[in-house]
């Protein structure tokens, strides 16, 4: 039966003209930060999520929360650490179940990190694969071609894996399904010297692509130091 005949029949059955080109929305999983989940709906599986921001903007805290949430779901996770910056003690304090985490230390080599992440995604079976380029110099991160990001996006497609990339600035561009820009709003200190304490930082995580919302409507969470 020709398509021209089938279309109106489907339209009458479905109660309207279906959009044949749109893809079903990916399944999402919680990030571990309720404010971000409420705003973005969670992290999409089978997609690339990019978290970027300046130094001390709360990116690593967000990444640790994602890993903690995934390991609490009994999923296995992988962290590809380009700059060998991961602190297991902090992560454990943040709730990451370390026996369920595979840590790949790439010794300050972003290219190795990309290749390792690609292999781990191709291997399959991970709930979250985090690619940490957070301390990679901006020039070095910019040298990563868009083709590499497309390759990663293609590899993770149709898998239940959440691919999270962390960097100083947006590198993946259109390859990322969800982008979260972190910015530190303020630092909370308490007490007077010499007993002064760093209490935490207030982080705003905005989604740069949602032009409809103003920056002030972006979710805010507090990363507690104590």
């Amino acid at each position, binding site marked *: 039966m020709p398509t021209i005949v089938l279309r109106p029949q489907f339209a009458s059955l479905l109660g309207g003209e279906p959009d044949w080109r749109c893809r079903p929305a990916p399944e999402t999983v919680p990030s571990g*930060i309720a404010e971000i989940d409420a705003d973005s709906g969670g992290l999409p599986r089978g997609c690339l999520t990019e978290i970027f921001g300046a*130094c*001390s*903007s*709360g990116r*690593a*805290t967000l990444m*640790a*929360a994602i890993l*903690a949430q995934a*390991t*609490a779901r*009994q*999923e*296995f996770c992988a962290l590809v650490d380009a700059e060998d*910056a*991961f*602190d*297991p*003690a*902090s*992560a*454990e*304090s*943040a*709730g*990451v*179940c*370390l*026996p369920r*985490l*595979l*840590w*790949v230390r*790439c*010794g300050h*080599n972003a290219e*190795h990190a990309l*290749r*390792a992440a690609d*292999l*781990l995604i191709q*291997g*399959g*079976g991970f*709930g979250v694969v985090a690619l940490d380029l*957070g*301390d990679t110099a901006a020039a070095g991160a910019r040298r990563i071609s868009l083709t590499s990001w497309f390759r990663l996006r293609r590899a993770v497609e149709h898998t*239940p894996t959440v691919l999270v990339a962390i960097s100083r600035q947006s590198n993946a561009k259109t390859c990322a399904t969800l982008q979260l820009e972190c910015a*530190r709003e303020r*630092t909370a*200190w308490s007490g007077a*010297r010499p007993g*002064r304490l*760093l209490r935490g*930082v207030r982080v705003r995580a905005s989604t740069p692509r949602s032009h409809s919302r103003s920056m002030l409507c972006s979710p805010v969470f*507090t*990363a*507690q*130091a104590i």
Partner: protein
Amino acid sequence: MFACLYGSGNLKALAAEFSPTVELTAADTVTFDISGLDRLFGLPQEIAAAILRRAAERSQVDGRGAGTCACHVPTHRDACRDESRHGRPECPLHLALASNPDAAICAARGFPRLSIVPYGDEAKFLAPLPLAQLAPSPELAETLDRWGIRRFQDLAALPPLGIAERLGPEGLRLRELARGEAQRKLKPIADPERFDEEFEPEYPVDLLEPLAFLLARLLNGLATRLATRALATDELRLRLKLETGATHERVLRLPVPSLDTKAFLKLWQLDLAAHPPAAPVVRVWLGLHPAKSQAAQSGLFLPSAPEPVKFEITLARVRAIVGERNVGTPRVLDTHRPDAFVMHGGWGRDSAASPSAGNPASLVLRRFRPARAARVTLVRSQPGTIAAEGVRGKVIDLAGPWRSSGDWWTPDPWSRDEWDIALSDGGLYRLYCDPAGWFVEGSYD
């Protein structure tokens, strides 16, 4: 059809050459199943001739080599010479073939050299043998002796009902043995099985690709042997003898037993690429440790985990990129020493680990490894400005110092003063001062 070898030497090895079902009946007696050998050799006489021929060959080889006799196969002349020299024959190799194991054992022990017990005439053939050969209990032996029953034929002629009434079950069993009618199954020897093979190529192999072909051949053979026994392997050992005379040994350990030869070959290729032999290979030995294969059904609603053997390949590939020691699961050590952790290479075995109790929105430290040496100017005994690689600025706010120390009772003590500082470049850092100087340990992110 069964055969029994009675004599001295390595009878077990000789029997194993003809049958997989070998029973070690006694230290000097071996019984084995020869059913089916007629299709290979023909008549029972020809089977017996083949066994004796092989025994003679083994005897010659072992006599030449180690100087010990494996199986003594006497000729008629030898037997006569021994009898004339010693008055009794030296224990020669006796061979008997019969339709049941016990008839073969009795014939082998009772008659010299070769005996072929005809099917259906076992009682007649065994008739002249002394009853002591059946090893009855002392009481039974005494009773039978008093009755004047001293040979197989005497006991075989007695009515079974009368024997059952007077001698009980043991008497009946002896009568069955004496008539050559006892039927039973052999109790085969359970040899500790070894799964290893070696191969010596015609010329030294100096490239990994031809070596992989040899490994594939050995792996396939060994995996088939394991599969026929419903086994798998969890450890693979490779020993390469090199042209220089040295030996190159490698071991692959798998998280779960498997029989995936393609995965094994890939793992060996990756391992040998990372650790190549120093010289061309002249001999390859491969051993597989047998283990029971695991069959587990995961839950429908449980999250998926990496498939173990496939994951080993992925890990090997990642290790080839980033280095052997840079991949694994971290474990925080039970100490206050900063950045104290160990990496475990065997990832994923602790799948039942419970999630950590922690605050998900806890501020995380990003470490600089190694810590960056800093130039610090002090203002009223507190850091005022910091200059380190990638970290430079004026201290806007700070908390500290926090003094900590430990391991002073060991040769490697540590002590430090820590500050949490907010710099004018927008970063939040951890700064510390120890006897070696000032360092920026990392940034809070």
